[in-house]
């Protein structure tokens, strides 16, 4: 946790300084009172101070909790990475594959590969899920979901 807090503190510090710099570049108000950059600069300064506090606290941390990593083991991290990757692929391919196909593939992947459900259950749940969402959103709510070149 100590290591994680230190890294988080540094990242937030850099982020908040970037916010301050971005806010400072915004033009001042042309009437009375503060301009567009006023709040971002204030927030950036507050955030920077807080991240320094976090770093100080992290340095003072000790004991058993300080040494433990907050992240899970390799196997779980792999499952998380695969889920994140599958979601990214889904968003990228949604308009090419069309809603029904992309959603069936995503739910099938998550259930069959990541959760290791039996293939028959996986296929039924995946197809049923895509169809159910299609009925709710496209037919009942009138949203036009993406279609592929074949028209579904």
């Amino acid at each position, binding site marked *: 946790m100590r290591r994680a807090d230190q890294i988080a503190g540094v990242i937030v510090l850099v982020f908040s300084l970037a916010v301050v710099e971005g806010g400072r570049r915004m033009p001042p*108000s042309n009437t009375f009172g503060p301009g567009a950059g006023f*709040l971002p600069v204030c*927030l950036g300064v507050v955030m920077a101070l807080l991240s320094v506090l976090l770093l100080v606290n992290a340095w003072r941390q000790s004991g058993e909790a300080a040494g433990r990593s907050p992240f899970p083991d390799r196997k779980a991290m792999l499952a*998380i990475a695969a889920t994140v990757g599958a979601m990214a692929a889904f968003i990228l391919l949604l308009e090419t594959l069309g809603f029904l196909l992309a959603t069936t593939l995503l739910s099938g992947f998550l259930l069959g590969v990541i959760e290791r459900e039996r293939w028959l259950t996986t296929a039924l749940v995946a197809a049923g899920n895509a169809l159910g969402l299609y009925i709710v*959103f496209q037919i009942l*709510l009138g949203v036009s979901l993406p279609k592929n070149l074949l028209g579904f």
Partner: protein
Amino acid sequence: MEIFHNIQMGFQVALSWQNLLFCLIGVTYGTLIGVLPGIGPVVGVAILIPVTFGLNATTAIITMAGVYYGAMYGGSTTSILINVPGESASVVTCLDGYQMARKGRAGPALGMAALASFMAGTLAVVLLTLIAPALASVALSFGPPEYFALTFMGLTLVTSLAGESMVKGLMSGAFGLIVACVGVDAVSGEERFTFGNIFLLDGFGFIGVAVGLFAVSEVLCNLEESMEQVFIQTKFTLRNLFPNWQDWKDSFWPIWRSSFMAFFLGNLPGAGATIASFMAYAMEKKLSKRPEQFGTGVIEGVAAPEAANNAAAGGSMVPLLALGIPSSGTSAVLLGALLVHGLRPGPLLFQSNPEFVWGVIASMYIGNIMLLILNLPLVGFWASLLRVPYRILMPLIVTISAVGVYATENNIFDMWIMFGFGIIGYLMRKLRFPAAPVVLGLVLGPLVERSLRQSLTISHGDPSIFFTRPISAALMIVALISLFAPLVRGVWEFRKKVVEIS
């Protein structure tokens, strides 16, 4: 009496067949969300925003409010039967509820939980009916400095109580406010942090951020551990569900005491249903003649927290409707939903949209009756849902979230926002940064900024304006106390215990 006139008008709105139907859908879905572990009311409401996007605002908010208090009913079922809270406000219910189930008294525990929820929920709506309009009329005289002080106080209270570390809570809140700055500045028309991306001109879409931060990150966290649970087999018959005379004698006063305490606690920013349920349990243990038996399956240990979480959920509607200030993560999402529908909650809402406000309030009376019916005779059905393994739910949550986010604007970019904030949300959870303040900051950001800049324009840049007007000064002092005084440390230590136990 004006209030009778108003509530009558509310019932006319709430009793239309469409609103009744959606109220039923909301409370049923809320019970489901409450029953299923690993998905709570914040996620449930966030997912519903896009689905209810096409409805009119009153119907949409009736549905979403129903999810919020419906989840409070459902959560107890899971706590009692499998010793796992269905949502965080039912954590304490596990202590005595599960012990009652082990002694073969699952029926009365479930029955008392539903009845206590109903009594508390109804009391909360009555108090809401009386207090919210009064508070709104006081707030009518608020100018920009009062609004800034009010939002500032809300943000500091929520963020300083939201997690294990006050510094991290405040960082989350500040991050939410920074995210709110993205897009075209409403005052000057200046583009801020858009990096030339046209989709960012309107800022980060609220729905994408909320769904990513709560639903997606929740799914990623749950991948780490197996969610399969052992299920206690119990027979459910309606006769078995009714608590006996002794149960009533033990629970009657704890229910009312906890409800009143939790309702007013729910009014305050920062103290949501979870804290209220813990405090109710602690209070009853202190007042009880048999404190040593708490934790072994006493019925008031179920009745008090279940009453408290419902009363607090109702209580949190007061500042939301009357002031436009959310007091918890779920009500922040509700506020976001109101804004999506073009309504600005606050004192003017009672005058400009009375049929909306009173329609929603009246629907809560009806919703509580629906929930009593759903949760008493049908409790066996909800219990059987616990046999659906979480691994089946996970792909459903992911795809519903993604499609819902897409559906609001027919826009792939919003799905990327969800994706990005899903990863940010996961990292925040792992590093123990609370997520609720981010959403609160994002929702309140525009109001904070406008009132701050208007105030400083009025005073020609002199910040003392916040301390020379009495209401504003009082609110600012509360905010500063919550940040600095050791007085808060008591609450703080308590909150820490809450986090440890949960």
